[in-house]
């Protein structure tokens, strides 16, 4: 297979390469080994196929779909934050139970995201202020007056973040049921790894405008969701899952 063919094969959309790439390469090799087929003919055809793949063919729908298999929720501990909201203790991907597999993941945020994002914002402000100070007043020392309030605020927000358990999480449906994972255990955007989800009883998971209520056996949990796929997934639930605003 020539370099030009390899380049054209590489030009296909990623989803196409994942699904049909190996087969197309195999077929191309077979055809090029056939004396009746010209190299240029195959090359042009692959280029047309690549253009069509980008222009016309749909990426396979990776949104969660209901497979019709009922599942039960698996609470993994919980806590109540300073606002009275109950949260779930996220676990890492390495903490899968024996035989448990992740079927699908939807991104989300647990706790109060503004508190969680404050430390990062303040850190950024410190860097900006520090930088501008150095630029505008070259040679001047960074004063205690400027530095201390920012450091105190940063510390307060970090504590608040821990107390409210604000963190990015991944709501996953595993073969054992619903589970909450720490987002950083997933290496790709969780939207990209959403795969088939089994059916969920309407009483278990409900969506709001931006929050999701999860009714488990030991209480009701609220999780802030950022993911449109989840909203669409809920909207398509055959059991007629109802939308509700937060607070309910």
């Amino acid at each position, binding site marked *: 297979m020539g370099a030009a063919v390899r380049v054209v094969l590489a030009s296909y959309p990623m989803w196409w390469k994942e699904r049909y790439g190996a087969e197309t390469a195999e077929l191309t090799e077979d055809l090029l080994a056939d004396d009746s087929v010209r190299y240029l003919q195959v090359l042009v*055809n692959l280029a047309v196929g690549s253009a*069509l793949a980008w222009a016309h*063919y749909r990426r*396979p729908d990776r949104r969660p779909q209901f497979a019709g298999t009922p599942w039960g929720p698996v609470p993994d501990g919980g806590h109540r934050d300073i606002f009275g909201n109950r949260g779930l203790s996220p676990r890492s991907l390495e903490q899968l139970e024996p035989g448990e597999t992740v079927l699908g993941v939807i991104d989300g945020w647990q706790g109060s995201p503004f508190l969680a994002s404050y430390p990062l914002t303040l850190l950024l402000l410190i860097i900006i202020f520090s930088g501008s100070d150095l630029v505008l007043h070259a040679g001047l020392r960074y004063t205690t007056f400027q530095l201390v309030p920012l450091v105190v605020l940063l510390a307060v927000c970090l504590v608040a973040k821990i107390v409210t358990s604000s963190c990015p999480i991944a709501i996953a449906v595993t073969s054992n049921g619903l589970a909450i994972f720490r987002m950083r255990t997933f290496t790709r955007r969780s939207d990209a790894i959403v795969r088939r989800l089994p059916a969920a009883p309407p009483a278990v998971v409900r969506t709001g405008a931006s929050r999701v209520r999860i009714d488990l056996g030991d209480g009701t949990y609220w999780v802030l969701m950022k993911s449109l796929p989840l909203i669409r997934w809920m909207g398509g639930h055959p059991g007629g899952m109802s939308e509700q605003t937060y607070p309910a």
Partner: protein
Amino acid sequence: MAVIRGSSDRSVLVLTSLSSGPKHGYALIKDIDAFAGVTLGPGTLYGAIAKLEQAGLVEALPGEGRRKPYRITAQGAADLRAQLEQSQTISTVGLGRLAESGAG
């Protein structure tokens, strides 16, 4: 949007080929070339297969190595039958009218 548009459509050619049994890409190209005189390339063949697979008209079977055979689904067979019957009706009417007018 209809996946099958006409009897010369690549989708119809692929479905017709698969109606005699599962085939992988190379076998499909050779079979279509033999019965229709149309030589599909790898790009256009897998374009047609992608459309048909997403529409649920064909499905992939576990294959050996990188080759993956495809087979027609029940829905695919029904759609193919409907399309071919429509084409047959048009052919019959068209040929009949040509004969009547003496143009053919």
